[in-house]
């Protein structure tokens, strides 16, 4: 008994009270309701199988994505070949002269479809007969076989000659330098 006159509560008494408070049973329909609810669920094994299939599909998609990305990456990561100076018209057989870096890119990606994003420099196209005619013209001028003077003279002058006003220049009076004594060649 405590100083105030109340009995001290024992563990057993406390547990007894809690047990009485918890002595509640579910309704008789509870189990039936749980069974009905579970009946609408898919089987655990089938559910597990479907989860495994979904996981496999996700892994397959990830692998395909990684492979696709790794195939695309080299075209963008390789350093382009340095640009080199080259003659505008090189050899006699030269018909198409692509830029140096474009040629390198093409050799790197031989047999592989080009992506639409890459924009190489435009190729310089000169026809074979035009190149031949230009070379013949230049060599003819150098060797004197072709004279262009008559043709250049024949070019009509379309512009009017400039009118220039006459410039009046006053005569300059020059005083001869002579010694005061009138002698020459004596200092």
């Amino acid at each position: 008994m405590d100083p105030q006159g109340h009995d001290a509560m024992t563990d057993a008494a406390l547990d007894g009270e809690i047990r009485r408070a918890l002595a509640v049973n579910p309704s008789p329909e509870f189990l039936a309701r749980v069974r009905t609810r579970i009946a609408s669920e898919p089987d655990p094994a089938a559910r597990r199988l479907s989860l495994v299939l979904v996981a496999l599909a996700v892994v397959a998609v990830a692998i395909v994505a990684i492979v696709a990305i790794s195939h695309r990456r080299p075209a963008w990561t390789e350093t382009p070949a340095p640009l080199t100076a080259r003659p505008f018209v090189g050899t006699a057989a030269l018909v198409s002269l692509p830029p140096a870096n474009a040629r390198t890119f093409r050799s790197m990606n031989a047999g592989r479809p080009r992506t639409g994003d890459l924009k190489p420099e435009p190729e310089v196209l000169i026809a074979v007969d035009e190149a031949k005619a230009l070379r013949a013209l230049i060599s003819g001028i150098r060797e004197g076989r072709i004279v262009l003077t008559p043709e250049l003279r024949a070019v009509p002058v379309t512009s009017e000659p400039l009118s220039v006003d006459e410039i009046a220049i006053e005569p300059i009076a020059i005083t001869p330098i002579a010694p005061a004594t009138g002698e020459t060649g004596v200092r």
Partner: protein
Amino acid sequence: MHEYTDRLPGSVAAVNAELEREFEARLIESSTLAFRIAFSVLRHRQDAEEVAQEAFVKAYRRFTQLRDRDRFRAWLVRMTWRLAIDRQRNDRRRAVREQHHEIAPAPTAVDDVLARERADQLWRAIDALPDKLRIVIVLANIEGHDVAGVARLLALPPGTVKSRLFLARQRLKEQLQWTLKGTTR
């Protein structure tokens, strides 16, 4: 039980039938345990049944990993407790409690009133406990679990359960004696 069973190969269907039997046994064995745990938190019969049912559905979905009896019961206890705590925090229906109807019938009207008052005080004291003390004292008084049994259900060392049980009892006794003194003055 399921339409899937008919479509699956024979071995898988047999496995499923075995799983169904095992789960039915666990359901019968643990339904009162789950319900009382939920009731100790919610003290509303319908809410407690709903929470226990939800816990069993979750257990069924993971039953291939919970076939061991001890593992199943431990998992069910923790899941039911967690669901009940969540429900208690979110559900406003908790205001209507059934605790008055759960007390053992009293022989006289005066005894009945006193018993109700005492039960109210007890539940208020239990509610005031921290969660980790509350679940220990509740489990120790459901189905007569001893310290080792509670330790297995909560996956805690027996020493931890023992100290928490001691602390919970101390606090409850202090609280109940204080309220008794207050009501008798």
